[in-house]
């Protein structure tokens, strides 16, 4: 008797099901189990940007060996605290200005020079090029700035042409690098460092948006090979989601003028300032300082009501603000208000009365 076709098909189907069920599980499915990454490491990193080398007049030929932008960044728990170091600082260990340390002895000498200047341990280094900085800024969609007056400067030999009008501007990576290189205003290099702090704060804020992560990882992979660093990209990238909760505070190393064009570390001011900056716990009660709010009218009224609940009276000034942040020379008061508003603390070099909280359009995005 011939078996019926339906029985044959049923037998085949059962056999196939048995084979499928006996197959080992897709390892990808196992990886879906939740795992917890370790905490962010505590780390002191010297971050510097190399200038451009000129092989001749009008002939840039790649990254130079002078580093005009130098930051000491300390990663501590969920916080990054950074100290900007003026390029004209005299460095005994480098035997001249600190911006020449990298040219004289590479990253190791630069780290020693930064340790000498700050008294802080520099474990790792990340030496950027201007092109890599521009690429990363482009990956997060550029930055917004507000210029009080036009920014114009031409250096034909360096092929540096800066021509930005006053007012709110959106800058691409290349334009943002020009904005950060400009130092032809009254405060010169200090104002340049403040502009770099502003851009760093904005890039971090944008990088906290998960929508930027694919482009950011791609950009980092492209630029990493041209950087001089002892940080492996493989150890950096898995911590990308940790950017979400990261808080940024940036100050400038206290210095004093000296002979020639050198600046010298203001040792007396440095100890007290850095101890307060790195050591201070966020005060539990509102600090007794003058507080001023600047920004969009709708944010000002909200912030005044918010502060009133805390028992703080604040003045308000309507202004165009590109980058929200807390600006003060007082690290403890700054920590309190940065924590309260979840904003970066950006201590400028120039004078600031009390605490200024700037609330811009970036908060509404």
């Amino acid at each position, binding site marked *: 008797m011939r078996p019926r076709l339906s029985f044959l098909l049923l037998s085949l189907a059962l056999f196939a099901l048995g084979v499928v069920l006996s197959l080992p599980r897709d390892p*990808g499915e196992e*990886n879906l189990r*939740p795992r917890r*990454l370790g905490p962010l490491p505590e780390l002191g990193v010297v971050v510097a940007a190399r200038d451009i080398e000129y092989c001749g007049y009008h002939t840039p030929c790649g990254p130079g060996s002078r580093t005009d932008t130098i930051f000491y960044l300390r990663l501590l728990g969920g916080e990054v605290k950074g100290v900007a170091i003026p390029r004209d600082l005299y460095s005994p260990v480098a035997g001249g200005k600190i911006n020449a340390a990298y040219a004289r002895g590479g990253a190791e000498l630069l780290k020693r020079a930064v340790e000498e200047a700050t008294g802080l341990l520099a474990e790792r280094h990340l030496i950027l090029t201007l092109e890599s900085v521009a690429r990363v800024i482009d990956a997060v969609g550029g930055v917004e700035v507000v210029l009080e007056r036009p920014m114009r400067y031409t250096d034909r030999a360096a092929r540096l042409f800066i021509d930005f009008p006053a007012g709110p501007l959106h800058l691409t990576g290349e334009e943002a690098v020009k904005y950060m290189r400009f130092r032809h205003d009254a405060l010169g290099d200090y104002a340049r460092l403040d502009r770099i702090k502003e851009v760093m704060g904005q890039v971090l804020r944008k990088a906290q948006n998960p929508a930027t992560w694919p*482009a950011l990882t791609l950009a980092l992979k492209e630029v990493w090979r041209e950087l001089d660093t002892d940080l492996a990209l493989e150890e950096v*990238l898995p911590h990308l989601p*940790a950017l979400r909760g990261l808080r940024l505070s940036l100050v400038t190393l206290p210095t004093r003028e000296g002979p020639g064009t050198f600046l010298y570390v203001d040792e007396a001011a440095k100890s007290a300032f850095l101890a307060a900056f790195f050591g201070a716990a966020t005060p539990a009660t509102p600090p007794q300082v003058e507080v001023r709010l600047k920004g969009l009218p709708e944010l000002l009224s909200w912030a005044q009501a918010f502060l009133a609940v805390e028992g703080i009276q604040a003045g308000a000034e309507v202004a165009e603000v590109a980058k929200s942040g807390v600006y003060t020379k007082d690290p403890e008061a700054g920590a309190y208000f940065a924590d309260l508003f979840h904003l970066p603390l950006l201590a400028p070099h120039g004078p600031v009365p009390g605490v200024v909280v700037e609330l811009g359009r970036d908060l509404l995005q």
Partner: protein
Amino acid sequence: MVKTKEALDLVGRIKDILWEKKAEGVVALDLRRVSESLDYFVLATATSTPHLQALERHLEEKLKEEGLRPRPTEGQSPRWVVLDYGEVVVHLMTREARDYYDLEGFWADAERI
């Protein structure tokens, strides 16, 4: 910006659309209790870069038919695509990228929905 109920409906809709195109490991995370500013993630694995692109196209087209468009993003990687629908952010990743960045591990406390 969609409301919470609408967001949950959208999460379900996105999961269905991704399953249609044979996405693997489709998982939705409710991040509201573990993050101050994130709401929902939908994660899915593509078996290859062409599959990743097909998932992206299919999801964008299907949701566009319902009047939803993702917020513009800068540039995408061949291993990781993000579609930002406001409260719901979709991460389409190759298996390698998903293991490497381990977003679920980072937000292990988030409720799966």
